[in-house]
């Protein structure tokens, strides 16, 4: 009898994921998987030390990412990923702290924390999967839901103006701001690589298809249709005015919007602390 063995096909990036937590809970065509894939590709190209990576996520579908990454990770309460990450980064500035969260978590309940973390230029890297609604809880409207979109809490069409996330991030003081869609995977990967090598508060928004819920309510019933919208409407206008970077049915402005150098909070703080420490030592001796 010949013992047959079928070789187990292992994805080359499976070492970046917690195999005992896979497969993930995300739907068919969900952009969250694409974001994690691009992130993992960027980590691999940079050969990032996974022992020094901390992934923090909030509540939402994308919030499950922390559980799937093979690194120190934490899943906070809704909206509080950024202040938690602030505590982590300040306590140990050697750690690479990445917040991966959603549009509602970062900009509705977490909006206040976002603008202050950006204002302080905390060395935290933020990846936002913007799926234009609250997916995990069934598809309610959120701060980025486009006008007239149908959601479970705006059945007659959304009448709230959505946030322009890149404008908000740029105005709050982020040192790197970019927006891509889940179609622009290669440029997204390059942006993530850039972000991981930058100092200060960095923000990348990825427009993410939510075909099972948002798409279905808004006449884009499959991931392919939503990606089709991204393909048709996207224009790359890097370093254009972020306040004019709209997302509409006909026009999605993507690109890098801000790429500046600014001293990060934790660097400033630790420089000050060492100066104060030295002075205190002199006084004691």
């Amino acid at each position, binding site marked *: 009898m010949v013992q047959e063995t079928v070789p187990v096909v292992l994805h080359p990036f499976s070492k970046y994921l917690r195999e005992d*937590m896979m497969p993930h809970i995300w739907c068919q065509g969900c952009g969250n998987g694409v974001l994690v894939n691009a992130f993992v590709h960027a980590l691999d190209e940079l050969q990032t030390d996974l022992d020094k990576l901390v992934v923090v996520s909030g509540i939402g579908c994308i919030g499950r990412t922390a559980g799937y990454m093979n690194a120190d990770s934490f899943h906070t309460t809704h909206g509080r990923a950024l*202040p*938690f990450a602030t505590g982590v980064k300040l306590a140990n500035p050697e750690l690479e702290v990445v917040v991966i969260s959603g549009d509602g978590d970062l900009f509705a309940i977490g909006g206040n924390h976002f603008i202050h973390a950006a204002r302080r230029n905390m060395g935290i890297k933020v990846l936002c999967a913007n799926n234009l609604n609250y997916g995990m809880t069934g598809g309610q409207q959120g701060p980025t839901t486009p006008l007239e979109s149908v959601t479970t809490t705006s059945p007659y069409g959304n009448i709230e103006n959505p946030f322009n996330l890149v404008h908000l991030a740029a105005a709050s003081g982020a040192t790197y701001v970019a927006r891509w869609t889940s179609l622009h995977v290669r440029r997204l990967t390059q942006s993530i690589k850039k972000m991981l090598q930058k100092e200060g508060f960095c923000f990348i928004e990825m427009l993410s298809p939510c075909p099972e819920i948002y798409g279905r309510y808004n006449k884009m019933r499959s991931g392919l249709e939503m990606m089709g919208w991204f393909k048709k409407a996207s224009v790359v206008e890097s370093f254009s005015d972020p306040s004019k970077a709209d997302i509409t049915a006909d026009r999605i402005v993507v690109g890098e919007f801000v790429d500046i150098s600014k001293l990060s909070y934790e660097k400033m703080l630790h420089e000050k602390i060492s100066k104060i420490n030295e002075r205190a030592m002199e*006084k004691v001796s």
Partner: protein
Amino acid sequence: MKTALTGAHFLNGDVACAEGAIAAGCRFFAGYPITPATEIAEHLSQRMPEFGGIYIQMEDEIASMAAVIGASYSGLKAMTATSGPGFSLMQENIGLAVMTEAPCVVVDVMRGGPSTGQPTLPGQQDVMQAKWGSHGDYGIIALSPCSVQEMFDLTVEAFNLSETYRVPTLLMGDEIVGHMWEKVVIPPPDKIVIVNRKKPNVPREKYLPFKPDENLVPPMACFGEGFRFHATGLTHNEHGYPRTSSSEVQSELVHRLVDKISKNADKIIRVEEVMLEDADIVVVAYGIVARAALSAIRKAREKGIKAGLLRLITLWPFPEEQVANAAKGAKGIVVPEMNCGQMVREVERAAKETPVAFLSKLGEDPHTPMEILEVIRRNK
């Protein structure tokens, strides 16, 4: 590094608390200004950097508590300080600290409530909230200082308890204890007992972040040590992975979080007993009110009434056994509180048959010794 404060000093309660934190090894403070706890933040903003520690003023109390948990998970001893309104805001994240078993200290310098209330006047209206404030079932430790010396000592003890039991420990002061000035005697650093969290002693691949030891507390790794573990506020198994559909996991986890404190209560609870051996009337008090109660029972003894004082140093877990023992020999219990009746409910429950008289007082002054003496006299 500047040296820690030692020797005899004349300090206010908030400053003593801040110095206690530093003596205990706290190297991270995130807070938001609120009367009457602002002085803790102001003092630490100056002292923390002298020790290489981190002070950050966050945008609100919710962010403060989240940052404290983050710093705790990165390996630092972390603390925040607030009063009633901020304490309410922090509840969700106190729940997160309980669920993820993050050691930290939260100081609540209580003031008149509810809502904005009387920011500059004392109260004891948050003591029940200390136990039940966050949603869900859990065990928590709360201490009640009655003097500036205790603001120092109990802060150190709060850190030690939080590190031992991996639970947020609350220091329930009040505006008077926080703002009054008294002599504090601080021992040299090598004489102060410091407890640090237990670290894992297994190789990285075998580490289970929420597998408890015999004392029901799991050893704690921190970020950056290569353990690559996950922690979540969702119901989780020993790996830290969410298990939101399993009744067994929920039952095991929540019961353990409650038992972690209740089964170790005998090691946690501290009370002060004054003249209880032959007492007919026992006054059960805590915080600033206990100072007046002490004076009251002494006056009562002068008048021939056998009164005694049971001062609660630990509010939660509630010292049931100590109250029950004191109640057994007594004819009556008097509970003076600066609220409308909170700890008195627990006292009644523990005292069983012994009648309990409650004396409420709200506003600027705590009960005077004469007021308590009057109630003692009426109930003997």
